[in-house]
């Protein structure tokens, strides 16, 4: 069972990472994450939007209403400078965690 803290951390990293590439609206964020993780991470509406709103409140991302190609009005999110600063330590922490787990599983396998 993955704890809430780990889930939240993973979600933050995923959202900040895809927004680092370009501005996206909510549905695109969910699809992009799903595609890039080959379905390993799936965001439902219920999981995605409270997270987006919280990150927006923390000023890591900023949402703006835009008119998309097909004339639809959509709220697009972009990474702010604070979000970029936040992304670096999160990435480092996760890299360290994965390295540690890899070392641990190697020791266990040996």
């Amino acid at each position, binding site marked *: 069972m993955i704890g809430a803290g780990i889930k939240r951390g993973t979600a933050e990293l995923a959202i900040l990472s895809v927004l680092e590439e370009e501005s996206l609206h909510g549905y695109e964020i969910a699809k992009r994450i799903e595609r890039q993780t080959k379905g390993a991470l799936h965001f439902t*509406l*219920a999981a995605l939007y*409270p997270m987006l709103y919280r990150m927006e409140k923390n000023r890591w991302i900023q949402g703006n209403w835009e008119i998309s190609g097909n004339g639809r009005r959509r709220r697009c999110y972009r990474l702010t400078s604070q979000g970029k600063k936040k992304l670096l330590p999160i990435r480092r922490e996760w890299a360290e965690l994965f390295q540690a787990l890899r070392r641990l599983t190697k020791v266990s396998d040996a």
Partner: protein
Amino acid sequence: MPSWKGLIRERLGALDFAAERREEILDELADHLEQVCEERRTQGLSEFDAMRSALDEVEDWRELAQRIRFAKEGEGSMINQIRRLWLPGAASLTASIGWLILAEPGYWAWFIAQPLFGVLGAYLSWRAGGDRLTQLAAGFLFPAVVMGYPGIQGLAMWATFSVGEFVQTNLLHQPIHFSPISHAGLLDPRLMGFSRFMLLLTQFVLPSLVLLLGAALPFFKTQKVQET
């Protein structure tokens, strides 16, 4: 094509934001579900199944509303605590006491009315965005604590005197008597045990249970709505 905004508005209930902000949230969520529905349609689902599948993105709409509120406002703000717990709790308590004082309904009429006060507290807490635990606490805890206070206080004193008497008599071998208290006829544990128990039962335990029942009623309703 369904009105996604209408469906979401219906399910999310009272989103306690300024009108413009609320509409923006509804627009955004509606747009998301519409796209999920279109995606499912391209995968070959019927319109009905695609709609159902899109709505399955949210397991608990009330919880979603709650999480959106927390995300937008911050969870622990004092104002939110006051609006979600203290004011509804005070309203529930005032209604319970007011009914007792103003209407002088007699014990059973007062007792039977308790679930209404529980519902009132839970409903007001829900309107203000309280989560389930907060709703229960607002509907149940305040009146229960006030009702239970004399009983709990008496029980605590009874326990203290009993322990004191046991220690003095059996460990220190200096038996003590509760003569002043016995004469006053107030707290002698030997005399008051049963009546304390009855007081607790009729003035605290049973009314608290029916209050709790009232405070929990909205949850049964939510479950029923989700099942349909």
